[in-house]
């Protein structure tokens, strides 16, 4: 029996009436959860923020209850080991876990040392360790990172390394908590299909918690949807979409919403499936307007951000590199701009340079009407124990009003929900910069949708609209194409420190493979990017076709 098979005795994961409450919490994080996962299954774990996905994964790897404490009842088993009786260290060779934040998952100085560590703890022979590190690096496309210091890695690179570490011991079960949240669309898709390949070739059972289901549903054998700590649905991806349309529309994928809105059956699991269904059910050669997308008129507001031949060099500790290379960018008041591009393309550096945190080596950047920037971790802005201590006086109240946040001054910022904390942090960045027209000329947010479910993203879209209505330009760097479709008028695409596309949103986000919305990828019409546009097209088309 192979080592993998030896370790995969019994079910990959079995939960029996598992209930769990975090220490000090009032409500249960998991309530009477029972499920079984067979070896080699690929499961997508769906659910909104706070529905219990992360708790379920933690229970599967022993962090619950051994690390988080709290009260637990029922049982959880990985293979033949009980996770309530064995701690995470004892389960390390049978289950791999990748948490949301890659920065806290890296404990070594170099990538090679990080990959080697779990093998050392397991007591593997040096030759076996070297082979395993090489293999997993090749499998994940990171051999060039092996000698790199972890502090020099981008978020996307860190995420890949974290996944590689979880896989290096070849565990029969791997649990992943939103592993694509920091990845660009290309890397995100690559990661999902890599997981599928590992699942098929190595027989690893995969449990993948994700908010962006359109990315991963097509790879799944089965979907489990969590709802308030309970299992709301457990079945095939197609059945899940039917259930979601009826019970939880916010969990349905864009193509499922589009097909449902247009009355087309069955609901598609992924782009390929959607195209296949359309080929069978709709005559795609019938008359379709060549372009039905909205093309925005150039905004005529004041220039609030002007970058001219902007070059920025940064030294991540291993010598200087050009991060921005001759960027020309102009943003006008009232514009809503999505800044997109692959990991390491220079998006964050662009925003930080505009905000004055980084000095360009040549060229210039000007924000004549002022700028506010919210960095990737809103928690970094929250340093006091009361909201009222962070923001006080009329300027503080005006900032809270501008972001639409109405919470007691006595609240501890750390007790606010994720969305509320983000708004509070943005209000802190805005406070006192709101004289004159009411808001600074440009408001920038760096990757604000990480870990957000669709409900929170729609609140963020409303916030961007609200700020733009007050006269500010809103510039958001994001990897989330669907969010960019809902929020932006214009998209600037960076590649390797250069602007490679700058046009209105429908032009950039339609007709592509990766930087394209799901509606665009399914229907492939110039300018068609949104679900509503897709429904209009398909509904009209459906009538013609029938």
């Amino acid at each position: 029996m192979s080592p993998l098979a030896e370790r995969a005795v019994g079910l990959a994961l079995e939960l029996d009436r598992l209930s769990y409450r975090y220490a000090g919490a009032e409500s249960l994080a998991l309530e009477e959860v029972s499920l079984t996962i067979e070896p080699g299954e690929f499961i997508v774990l769906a659910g909104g923020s706070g529905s219990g996905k992360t708790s379920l994964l933690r229970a599967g790897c022993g962090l619950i209850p051994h690390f988080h404490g709290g009260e637990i009842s029922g049982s959880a088993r990985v293979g033949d080991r009980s996770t309530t009786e064995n701690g995470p260290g004892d389960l390390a060779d049978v289950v791999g876990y990748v948490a949301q934040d890659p920065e806290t998952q890296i404990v070594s100085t170099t990538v090679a040392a990080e990959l080697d560590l779990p093998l050392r703890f397991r007591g593997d022979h040096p030759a076996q360790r070297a082979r395993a590190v090489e293999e997993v690096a090749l499998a994940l496309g990171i051999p060039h990172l092996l000698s790199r210091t972890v502090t020099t890695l981008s978020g996307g690179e860190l995420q890949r390394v974290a996944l590689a570490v979880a896989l290096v011991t070849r565990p029969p079960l791997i649990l992943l908590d939103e592993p694509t949240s920091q990845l660009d669309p290309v890397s995100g898709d690559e990661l999902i299909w890599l997981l599928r390949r590992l699942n098929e070739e190595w027989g690893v059972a995969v449990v993948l918690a994700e908010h962006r289901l359109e990315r991963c549903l097509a790879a799944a054998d089965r979907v489990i949807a969590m709802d308030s700590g309970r299992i709301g649905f457990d079945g095939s991806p197609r059945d899940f979409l039917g259930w979601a349309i009826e019970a939880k529309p916010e969990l349905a994928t864009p193509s499922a919403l589009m097909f449902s809105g247009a009355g087309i059956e069955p609901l598609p699991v992924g782009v390929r499936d959607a195209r296949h269904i359309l080929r069978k059910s709709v005559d795609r050669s019938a008359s379709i307007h060549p372009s039905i997308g909205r093309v925005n008129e150039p905004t005529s507001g004041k220039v609030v951000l002007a970058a001219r031949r902007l070059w920025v060099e940064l030294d991540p500790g291993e010598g200087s590199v050009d991060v921005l290379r001759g960027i020309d960018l102009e943003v006008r008041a009232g514009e809503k701009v999505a800044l997109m591009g692959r990991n390491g393309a220079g998006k964050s550096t662009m925003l930080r340079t505009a905000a004055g945190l980084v000095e360009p080596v040549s060229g210039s950047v000007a924000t004549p009407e002022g700028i506010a920037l919210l960095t990737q971790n809103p928690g970094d802005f929250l340093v006091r124990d009361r909201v009222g201590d962070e923001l006080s006086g009329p300027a503080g109240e005006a900032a809270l009003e501008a972001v639409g946040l109405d919470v007691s001054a006595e609240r501890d910022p750390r007790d606010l929900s994720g969305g509320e904390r983000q708004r509070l942090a943005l209000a802190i960045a805005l406070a006192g910069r709101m004289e004159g027209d009411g808001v600074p000329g440009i408001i920038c947010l760096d990757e604000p949708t990480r870990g957000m479910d669709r409900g929170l993203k729609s609140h963020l879209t409303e916030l961007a609209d609200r700020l733009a209505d007050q006269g500010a330009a809103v510039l958001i760097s994001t990897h989330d194409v669907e969010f960019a479709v809902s929020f932006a008028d214009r998209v600037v695409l960076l590649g390797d420190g250069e602007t490679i596309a700058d046009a209105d949103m429908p032009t950039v986000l339609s007709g592509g493979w990766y930087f394209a919305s799901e509606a665009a990828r399914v229907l492939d019409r110039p300018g068609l990017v949104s679900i509503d546009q897709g429904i209009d097209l398909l509904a009209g088309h459906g009538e013609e076709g029938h």
Partner: protein
Amino acid sequence: MKKLSPIAYVPRRETVQTASLAPVALYLGAYLLVCFFSSDPLVLIAATVGAAVAGYGSGAGRAVNFSLKLGAFLALTMIVVNALVTSRGATVLARLGDWPLLGQVDVTAEAIAAGGVIGLRVMGTMVVIGVWSACVDPDRILQAVHGVARRSALTATLISRLVPLAATDYARIGEAAALRGPAAAPVGRGAMAHRLLAGSLDRAVDVAATLELRGYGKSGESVRFKRIPSRYDRRFWIAGGILMAIALAELLYGSGRFDSYPEISYSVRVEGPLAAVAFLAGGAITWRKGRR
């Protein structure tokens, strides 16, 4: 691309970075010990300068500069606070009248001198910690800790990772502080320190969880980490041994006698300047031939 904390560890092929952990710990430990316990200003200044020279010699100039700046700020704070809260001392430089909470405030030369000695200790300590953090690979510390704390990933994390985590958080929170609107409450050093400590401990717990997931505490099994010898080990063993002996002698017997109260008095014995020269010269052993 992330901004690197000035005291973050960067692998370099310099002496401190490539030497084994034990001799480096002995060497820098001697500096730390003397900075913590010596009351002789001459020795304290020499140890601080020596540690800074050691840092520069190891290519950790950014860390040294950062530590010197932070240490100087803390030292100045010590001097001001001590001058205001301590009225002891015979040489009154200024009578500042009755202050709320403090009462009669008399600024004395002795209180300033006493604050200066405490400040020198703090500055020296900061420089040694900065050099340690920037030059000593946390992986080696983790491996060493694993030998003595096999079951506790949290202990291992706190020892090997707390300073790097705090350094990373400091850079990030400092950046966020610079982005706060002018009407938001400014991030004072107290609030920053509080947030830094709480945040670093939270993150240390997360990192400890990761270590457990890697199999750190598995059944308490011993893992043998291969020791990587360095040609610089001998140099650090010898220098570290001598400096540690001097530091212990300084701790037990004292060299120069410095008293702040009731009047400033400083009696220099021959051991004081000798210890100062040793710690000053000791900093130069990190420099190597051919270093650019």
